[in-house]
Structure formats: C-alpha cells, structure tokens
C-alpha cells in the first residue's frame, strides 16, 4: 500500500499485562491499517483485546502492569510519520486531542464532573491552538451546536451531571473533534445508550466523519452497529485478529469459522410474517481466559471445523484474492 494513503499502521502489536497470575497477552500480534476518511470496525467479545488495542494506540493503558512488548504503531500526520511506540509522553500529549482523539462507552468517566461542558471543549482548544479567548468561546459554542446540543450558549454552562447519557456522549464527541483530529478512536460509544438514542449518535458520527474527513476506528461487540457504520471490519478473538474484510464481504461471506459462527448465532429481528427460527445456532464452550490461552488457534476448542493440527501452531493471517485476510489453516477447505 502507498504510504500516502495510510493514516494509521498497526503492525504485529503485542501488549501484555504482567500480574501475579502471570503474563496476560491481551493483544497478541495484531496488524491492520486505517486510511483517512475510512471507518474500520474492530469487533470482538470480552477478552478479545479490542479495547487494549485502542488504548495501546493512545498509549493510555495502565503501565505497569501493561506494556507494549512488540510491534509497531505509526501515525501519518501532517506529513510526518509518528512512531507511537517510541514517542515520549510529552509528545503523546501533544498528539492526543490534536492528531488522535478517543471517546469511550461511559462519558461520565472521561468528562470532568467539576468543569462545565463548555470549559471541557475550550480546554482542548487552549492546549492545542493559539486561539484567543473570544475565538475559543465562539468555536466551543459552534462545536456544541454541531454535535446537536440545543441552545449551546446556555448548555455550555451546564455540568455533565445535568445532562442525559445521550447528551453527554455528544459533549464527549465535541471535546474529541474540536481540533479536527485525523483519527478518532471510538470505544463502544453507543453501547450504554438506549436504542433510539444510539441511532441518533450513529447518525451524528457518520455525518461528522464525512464532514471532518477523519479516519474512524470504531470498537464494538455489536454486529448490528458494525453493519451500520463500518467500511472495513477487523474481527478479534482471544487477543488475535482472525479476519479482516470489507463490510459487505464480511457479512456476505465470512471466511473464518468464528466470524461465521458468530453471525449465525445472532437472534435476528424478523419483520413481516416470517417467524424467527426455533433454537439459535449457539457457539459451544467459553471464551478462553487471557492467562490460559489454548495452543495454536485460540478458537479451535469451540470450532466445528477444528482438526488436531489446529492446536499445534498459530495459523498465519492469509490474504484471499478478494482481499479478505483470514487466520485459519482450513480456510481453503471449508469455504467455497
């Protein structure tokens, strides 16, 4: 790939947590890229490593016990390649908020309860721009207005606890985007919201991505949300990437047995007279603990296609002619 087209390169990233119970390989050799203006959904269940991947890019995981033990993270921004693994903490602070921003599932934990929402937006502008007081105030109100907060001049003086969950999420988006970062990382941003509010926030994020032209790394466990927002999808399981694909290809022809099984296990909303099927096609077994990952392919113990050799070595990530990347040694045998 031409480097000019790439915004973020994640290459063989390994992040571990060192605890009394041993080394938990939260992220184990994960590679993907995000291009400008593109939405990559990083999908996985608990323990898949999707959030730790995001926090590694931001360098926001607790350290110790966490440490990036291998791999490269490169951000292409303002004509410079920034090495996010080697960057000093002051350098990371300059990049956060201006080049990369992150929003979280629960806005209350990342908004400061002691500052008005206007102050929190203004703080980012003071840190990363040379704007004067009046310009900052004007830009703050514009941004709150842009994320759909009614009467933004008045609302700027409210504290986070005055706002509903949906409004707080909008404020957090305003804080994240006010300096127009090249990359926005969103970690389950709609998971805590009611379904009707979730729709509004997804709509807002789609509009803002088009307007700001940023790359979006959208982390979620919800395949419905993935289908709504992603251009490309990376599926993680037990610390590893098992499949990456364009969103249509992933849902039409999932190539990894885990992706296929996950899609089949979902209860689907049936409209019209069609009745939902009887029993769901559940995936047997449990997600392995990060301290006791099975050898070889981590999905093998739950996989209907597993063979003894699946537990011998970790399968390589192979790219199909269609551009899908799949980590399964039986990939050629089990799919058309």
């Amino acid at each position, binding site marked *: 790939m031409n480097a000019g087209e790439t915004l973020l390169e994640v290459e063989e990233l390994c992040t571990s947590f060192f605890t009394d119970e041993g080394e938990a390989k939260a992220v184990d050799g994960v590679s993907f890229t995000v291009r400008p203006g593109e939405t990559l959904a990083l999908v996985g*269940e*608990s323990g898949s490593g999707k959030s730790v991947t995001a926090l590694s890019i931001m360098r926001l995981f607790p350290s110790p016990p966490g440490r990036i033990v291998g791999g490269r993270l490169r951000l292409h921004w303002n004509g410079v390649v920034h090495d996010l693994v080697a960057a000093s903490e002051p350098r990371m602070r300059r990049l956060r908020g201006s080049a990369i921003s992150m929003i979280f599932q629960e806005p209350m934990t990342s908004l400061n309860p002691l500052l008005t929402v206007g102050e929190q937006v203004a703080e980012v502008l003071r840190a990363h721009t040379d704007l004067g007081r009046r310009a900052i105030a004007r830009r703050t109100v514009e941004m709150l207005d842009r994320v759909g907060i009614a009467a933004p001049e008045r609302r700027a003086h409210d504290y986070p606890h005055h706002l*509903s*969950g*949906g*409004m707080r999420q909008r404020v957090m988006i305003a804080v994240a985007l006010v300096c127009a970062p090249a990359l926005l990382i969103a970690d389950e941003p709609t998971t805590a919201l*009611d*379904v*009707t*509010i*979730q*729709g*509004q926030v*997804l*709509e807002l994020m789609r509009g803002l991505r088009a307007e700001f032209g940023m790359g979006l790394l959208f982390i979620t*466990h*919800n*395949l*419905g*949300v*993935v*289908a*709504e927002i*992603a251009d490309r999808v990376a599926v993680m399981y037990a610390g590893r990437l098992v499949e990456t694909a364009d*969103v*249509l290809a992933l*849902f039409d022809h999932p190539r990894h047995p885990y992706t296929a*099984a*996950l*899609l089949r*296990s*979902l*209860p*689907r*909303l*049936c*409209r*019209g*007279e069609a*009745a*939902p099927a*009887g*029993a*769901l*096609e*559940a*995936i*047997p077994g*449990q*997600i392995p603990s990060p301290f006791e990952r099975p050898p070889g392919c981590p999905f093998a113990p*739950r996989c209907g296609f597993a063979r003894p050799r699946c537990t011998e070595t970790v399968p390589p990530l192979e790219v199909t002619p269609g551009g899908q990347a799949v980590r399964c040694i039986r990939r050629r045998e089990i799919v058309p």
Partner: protein
Amino acid sequence: MIEVDRLCVSFAGRGGWLRGRPLRVVHDVSLTLARTEVLGLVGESGSGKTTIGRAILRLLPPAGGRISVDGKDITTLSRAELRPMRRQVQMIFQDPYSSLDPRLTVQQTISEAFAIHRIGRRHDWPERVAALLERVGLPPEAMRRYPHEFSGGQRQRIGIARALAVEPAYIVADEPVSALDVSVQAQVLNLLGDLRKRDRLGLLFIAHDLAVVQHVSDRVVVLYMGRIMETAPSRALYAAPRHPYTEALIDAAPVPDPRQRKVHRSLHGEIPRPDAPPSGCVFRTRCPYAIDACARIVPALEEVTPGHWKACIRDDVP
C-alpha cells in the same frame, strides 16, 4: 396465571428537591402471564420494565393496583405470607457477577433455596444439586466451586439452576442475556427455551433488545415511561406494529446486514424526565405523527384486533 391489574409503583424522593414527593414510575399497567407462556416486556431506560418485574415478586411495594398468582391476591401479603408465593415465582437477574454470593460454593448457593423452602432431606441435597446442574448444562463437579471460577455464561446458568431449585411455576428474567458475550447469549437463550418447553414454565422476559425479545416471546408488551404503549402476540407486533413508538423502536434496532443500512431520522429528542412527563400522550414529544389533540388526551389502551392493544388516538398511523 399471574395477573397484574392496573399496577402503579412509586419511588419516594431520595432527598434534595425531590424529598417527600413520590415519583410514579409505573402507571396503571395490566398484564397476564400464563404457565408455559413467554411474555416479553420491552422498553428503554425509564420504561419501568424492571420495576414491574420486581413488583410482581413483591420486592417493591405497589402503590396501587392488584397482583395475583394462580388466583391468590398477593398485593398486600406480609413477608411471612409471601413465602409460598416466592416458591411459585422466581427471578433471574441481569448481572450474574453480582447476583451470586462470592463466599458460597454453587452447592451452598443452591442448597440455601432448599433450606428456605424446606425442600427434600439434607442428605439428598447434593444429588438434587447435581440434577439441577445437569439440567442447565453444567457438570456435577461445578457444585464444589465458587462463582469467580466461572465465566459469565456459566454464572448465568448457576443463577437459572438456583431459580429452578424450588420448582417454580413462573420465572421473571430481568435482562438475563444482556451482560453476556454474543457467543454465549445464544446458549442461554436456547437453555431458557428448553426449560420453558420441558418444565412448562411461565416466563416474564424483560429486555431492551427487540431481536432477543422476538426470539423468545409468544406475546410482547411495549413500555414507555412506565406506561403500556402496545401489546400483542409477538408475530403481529413485529409484522405490523400499531403504535408509533413500537415502530420507532423496531426501526432504530441496528440490523446485522450492511445492505439494510438505515438513516436514523424517525425519532428525535430524548426520553423526558419522569418527574415532568408530557401532558396527554407521554410519547408525543418524540412522535413523528403527533397532532394537537395528543397533548390533551391521555390515550387509553384499545383493542385493534383480537389480542392486539395500542394506546394511541390516531388510527391512521403508523
């Protein structure tokens, strides 16, 4: 049958400016649940769905209305008088991490239910526990282990085994799969489906996920701000919702199919605060079909086709 007739539930103000002013969170809710039936109770936050479930178990005192179980009025029973009812109606909770006592083994947790309801002889309990574990798909060795040794899905199975221990006729399941990973949700949904068929249990299934509710329910009640908006047999409700809120909820649910990507325009605004509900129909402030009369008239639940009820004054929508 469980019959709930015009149930009202209020919370006392917890201080501040609300002090002394009770806040009504469930308004005149009537519903029935037969043995062997699954009734889905669906709504967003503040809809009152969890409160209704807890009131049916008398974990919360009703502020009005009547609840009866198999013909016996339980609305005003004392704690001691409630014990036989507690054996009839059990509950499964959302969070399998906080609903099990971390200091008790699985055997102790389940045996507690035997002790409270004086079921069987003490020396038979281990055998009963093993049988229950088998019914929920856990090996008998699991009884000697502690909750932290299990995954979320396994803990939910333990919660289900504990509920089944007293051989209830009804189970209130409050968001039983929403804290579970997608790949284990289906396991637990299938288990609940099997139990209902095999054990002829009545299940009140409380959830916010419309696809999950459709999958398990025979009938569905849609709640908004503590009031019933619509209730119907599951198939009729999803095929042709008659209340604008139900339509909006179905439209808003993200579908795992990128070819059906939608534009979310139908519902603007947020759920109003329960202490300042809109006049007339509580949904009118967000309803795309609202007319002036909606602010004046509190819509009554009306039967539109047999078994299909809606609380909306407009018959021409959606």
